[in-house]
């Protein structure tokens, strides 16, 4: 019986992914047919580079959301990573690898701080990470006085502008990280615990999962990925500015939600998130290439988020209904079995 349920669930998830992929293809080919400039290499590159940093943040966000948490602070960690790496190189004169490593360690530390506060204070992660978001954004503004920092070395700029086999380094980074994290999330024992925690934290704790440790480590992962994105963004733009990445936390969350993860926790995959990221990138690009007023982008973004959430809610409801029907049939069967044997009902 259990396998029967899993099969049904799998089917529904597959349908969702296929549907999303079909919508993406329909938009891309529709605009290609209408305007004829979508499927060019240059445009595809622009399209990918527009969303890649939010995409990297969305990967970490997927882990956090599966666990039933949320991390609003990624946007300010992103800008902080930019500023810190720039300051270390330009103002402190450190060599590139040292600056990058120090920045990543600091960003991981911010994630650890988030995680520890969430575990210790037992307050909703939304509030804690909102606090970190506002604090860190203020710090970003204050330590740069609102000015941008530039003047990087060629070697550093490669991190954002360099290409391997004609593909930009950030895109390669995104793809490789998505692949590794996706495999780990699907198969590694440690990350499978996330689904357990997201499904029911109490149950996970009672069955011996070290919930606190897992939580802290996932917030560290999310912040570190945001820091990576920040470093590459500094290299791509050739400048660090506190205003970069504003509202990118919302785009990252939207990608995860469009990718079919339940924001209450307990479900979601990296594959879905990647599809969600591609979807947002394609929609944005469709507005740019079609020269429709790009101001519409925000409207469509919001409406799509609502639609995606409605659909995934609908699917979740169907899943629970199936689960309930299954339980009921099992119950009926066992009762039938017992009564037929003449035991107690």
């Amino acid at each position: 019986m259990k396998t029967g349920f899993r099969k049904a669930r799998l089917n529904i998830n597959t349908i969702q992914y296929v549907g999303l992929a079909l919508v993406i293809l329909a938009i891309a080919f529709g605009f290609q047919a209408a305007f004829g400039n979508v499927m060019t290499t240059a445009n595809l590159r622009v399209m990918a580079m527009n969303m890649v940093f939010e995409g990297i943040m969305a990967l970490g966000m997927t882990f956090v959301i599966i666990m039933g948490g949320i991390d609003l602070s990624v946007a300010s960690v992103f800008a902080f990573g930019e500023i810190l790496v720039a300051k270390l190189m330009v103002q402190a004169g450190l060599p590139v690898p040292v600056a990058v490593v120090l920045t990543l360690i600091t960003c991981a530390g911010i994630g650890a701080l988030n995680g520890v506060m969430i575990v210790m204070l037992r307050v909703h992660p939304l509030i804690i990470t909102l606090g970190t978001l506002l604090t860190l954004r203020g710090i970003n503004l204050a330590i740069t006085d609102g000015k941008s920092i530039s003047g990087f070395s060629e070697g550093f700029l490669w991190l954002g502008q360099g290409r391997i086999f004609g593909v930009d380094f950030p895109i390669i980074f995104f793809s490789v990280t998505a692949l590794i994290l996706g495999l780990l999330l699907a198969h590694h024992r440690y990350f499978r615990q996330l689904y357990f925690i997201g499904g029911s934290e109490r149950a996970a704790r009672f069955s011996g999962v070290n919930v606190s440790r897992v939580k802290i480590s996932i917030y560290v992962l999310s912040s570190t990925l945001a820091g990576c994105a920040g470093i590459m963004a500094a290299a791509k733009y050739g400048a660090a500015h506190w205003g970069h990445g504003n509202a990118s936390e919302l785009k990252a969350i939207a990608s995860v939600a469009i990718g079919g993860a339940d924001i209450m926790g307990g479900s979601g995959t990296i594959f879905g998130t990647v599809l969600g990221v591609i979807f947002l990138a394609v929609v944005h690009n469709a507005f740019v290439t079609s020269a429709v007023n790009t101001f519409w982008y925000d409207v469509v973004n919001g409406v799509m988020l609502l639609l995606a959430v409605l659909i995934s809610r609908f699917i979740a409801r169907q899943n629970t209904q199936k689960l309930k029907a299954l339980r009921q049939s099992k119950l009926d069967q066992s009762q039938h079995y017992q009564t037929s044997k003449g035991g107690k009902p």
Partner: protein
Amino acid sequence: MTITERTIEADQTALVSRLVSSRQFWLILINLAVICTLGALRPDSFLSWINFKAVLSLMSYDVLLAVAMTTVLIVRGLDLSVGSVLALSSVVMAMLLRDGYPVFPSLLAGLAIALLCGFINGLLVVKAGILPFLVTLGMMSAARGFATVLTTGQYVSFPQAPRWFSRFARQEFGFHIGDMFYGIPALLLITLGVTLVYGLLLANWVPLRRMFYLGESPEAAKLSGMRTARLGISAYLISAIFVWIAAVLMTSANKIGYANYGISAELRALAAAVIGGASLAGGSGSILGTFLGVLLLALIGNGFVLLNGNPNWQQATIGAVLIIAVGVDALRTFRARS
């Protein structure tokens, strides 16, 4: 000692202990402490009526938005769209005024837009059962987008609108004490009046008190025969009304409608409401607490400017105060439990 005296004494100690343990009491003390510190450090610039007037007028929009946020937090909701609905409503009103419509129909159209947004939020949250965080996130993006589409990102001024509309928010009602003239802008008076009335109603009027019950335990509220769906949606509608009031005041005071009004105001409103005692778990929060939360943030911001510190640090303090408030709460509940 007679019995009555003893009970009165007991009542008094109970009152004192309740006062000391209440959140508003501590917030008032902290606010007074900040005022005294700033007053001692910068007696001339801080303790002037002009400075107080500026601080209070600037924070009145945040007060209205934070009151809106508190209302939905009480029913275990969340409204991230307050800032963008403010912008959309302001833009709609300004465009109608620019096109020569009379003031009241324009204002009503703004109200209708705000209520529509609130209604959609409430419907999706209550009826479809989607997390308020996501619903209002979508609404935040969509409403800001619509405002930008309507105005193509430009300011909307309305030179043909009646003079009194573009003046009333800054109109000052003054009174003389000795030789000094103290003027209070209508903006501030309206904000304080509306907030006061609503705070009293929320604390005493049964239909609004029910919202606390609903937030505390939706199941119990439903089982005890409340119309929970209607109550939940009406919380979002009340929130929309406060957003609309803020939009009217902002449009009138600045004499323009603009699609970028209230950017990241939702985060400040949420921070102020949580500092004031509201919780994402629902069922708690008070208007006085929220007001004091906004006041605290505004005073600290003002202090940074006056102490010639870097005003850029002001934003960082909002987050820090939020985390400290939440931390103190956690300590208190921890102590109460053990």
